[in-house]
């Protein structure tokens, strides 16, 4: 039996700054909380393809698993948690931006 589909967000790095970014319903955001949560596999694939086509703005597009706290997406894997927050040795990256 295939695994049940779990919620996802489209994520990538911004071409110019390298920042971790997430696809929102209106464009790209640097804040995971603002990301568009995808719960339907076909829609998720479509959104990933649309994102990957924006080659002049984004690099390395993929779907990342998220869990929902209420309606807010939060990372499932620790790698995504670091991407969403920044490194643990300095308060650099997103933790100094949000």
């Amino acid at each position: 039996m295939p695994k049940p589909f779990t919620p996802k967000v489209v994520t990538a790095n911004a071409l110019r700054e390298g920042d971790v970014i997430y696809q929102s319903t209106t464009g790209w955001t640097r804040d995971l909380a603002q990301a568009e949560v995808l719960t339907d596999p076909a829609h998720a694939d479509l959104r990933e393809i649309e994102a990957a086509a924006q080659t002049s703005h984004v690099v390395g597009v993929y779907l990342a698993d998220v869990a929902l706290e209420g309606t807010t997406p939060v990372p499932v894997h620790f790698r995504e948690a670091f991407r969403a927050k920044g490194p643990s040795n300095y308060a650099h990256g997103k933790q100094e931006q949000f």
Partner: protein
Amino acid sequence: MYHYTDFDAAFLKERNAQFRAQVERRIDGSLTEDEFKPLRLMNGLYLQLHAYMLRVAIPYGTLNSRQMDQLAMIADKYDKGYGHFTTRQNIQYNWPELRDVPDMLDALAEVNMHAIQTSGNTIRNVTADHFAGAAADEVADPRPVAELIRQWSTDHPEFQFLPRKFKVAVTGSAADRAVIKAHDIGLRIVKQGDEIGYEVIIGGGLGRTPMIGKVLYDFVPQADLLPTLEAIVSVYNLLGRRDNKYKARIKITVHENGIQDIRARVEDRLKLIRPQFGGIDQQMLARIEADFAAPTFLKGYLEPYHNAYAQDPVFRSWADTNLSAHRNPDYAIVSISLKAHGKTPGDATSRQMRLMAALAKRYGHDELRISHEQNVILPHVHKGDVPSVYYALKAEGLGTANIGLISDIIACPGMDYCALATARSIPIAQEIATRFEALKLEHDIGPLKIKISGCINACGHHHVGHIGILGLDRAGVENYQITLGGDGTEDAQIGERAGPGFSADQIVPAIERIVAAYLALRTDPSETFLTAYRRLGLAPFKAALYPEAQANAA
């Protein structure tokens, strides 16, 4: 040190102009990422977890004060005010923006530096003993030949698309401080009678399949070195496996074909290419050697050193730990620890870089070295000046007395920065250092090298750590495997895996149990951890690590 010729400067200028245009074409959409990626990697630019990362080569780990000052300037202007010194004698900037990178490369070129071949399947930055030119036990300074190899390998048309990356390290001493047996090619300068030559070791490497290098030749005369290297890399280029990334390094080529087969192929190739080397390389080497002439050592008063040593116990502790024997008895080699307890191993702020540059200029014949152990060295300091150097370092958080001790930990950037990592390394290093500082046991424990990698690629050299730690992702949770008894010196040894891994909050207590076992088992304080391990083997340490298993078996 080596000064760029007009040819070098023109080459770099052209290369940087090419990359500037490539970046512009990427930003305006003319180049796709697939097209751009190999171009940026050829110039040392990675895209990591949170940002781009620029890896700048510090050839054979040697810098002057002007170069260090420029690294500080770049850290302030284009990054977040610091840089990370790596296990391959490079410096990495973790936060540059793509559009700034061409300016960073131009700034580097102003001080004869670049980021070429710090990535990709090419011959990488040639590393060397960080005590080169200063060590008391040296046959000859390895840096001239390292520079010759750098020039030969940079933009070498045959070797731009090797099966995999290729790393060369050189030492001029019998005591190996450059981990030459864990490199694709390791070279040791040796003497036969009065003749200088090279022991050539190939097929070492860490990573997924760690191997200790094998001796290809005991003695290659100086004039035959470059042709021999060219023959080796040429054989590997054709024979190395391109079908499987995990089997593509020369260590696998040597392992699968055997050293005798490789030697026969190298000799065939050498016959073919040897006539092409008409001696120009030897003229170049002679010119390079002149650039690396030893400084004019000063005669001076040693009293300030003896007075500080007698009167200040904190200075004495630092001097006992961080100074090494210089070939001139009035001089010392000063190791500056970038491992202050609780800080990130290998990181230096721009202020710290400027201070180290200023001290090198004032007291150190304008020379600095970066060690593969992620520390900075002032190779030539007159002993009379050592106290002044120490007190200045101490004021900037650079006076930690821990070289070679348990908190002098090598750690790769790990998952805090690296896109390849499977777990974090830096926080584990920080916690171990902080814990043993709190226990005040560090100096009692004595020489002990802990090395941490955040993935199987082993940038943190964990296989050759006395205690090695490898961070993995086990079902979505960070897990740390321990290896014991590794050694990166001339007696190189791959560590033995101790058993099942530990979670992030269990790894520091696990290290503490190993150290407690060692302290209980050593014959006396002069028996180091590694010596004790070699005498006792894995069993008693395993018992200390896994007390439950012992209890269950009983």
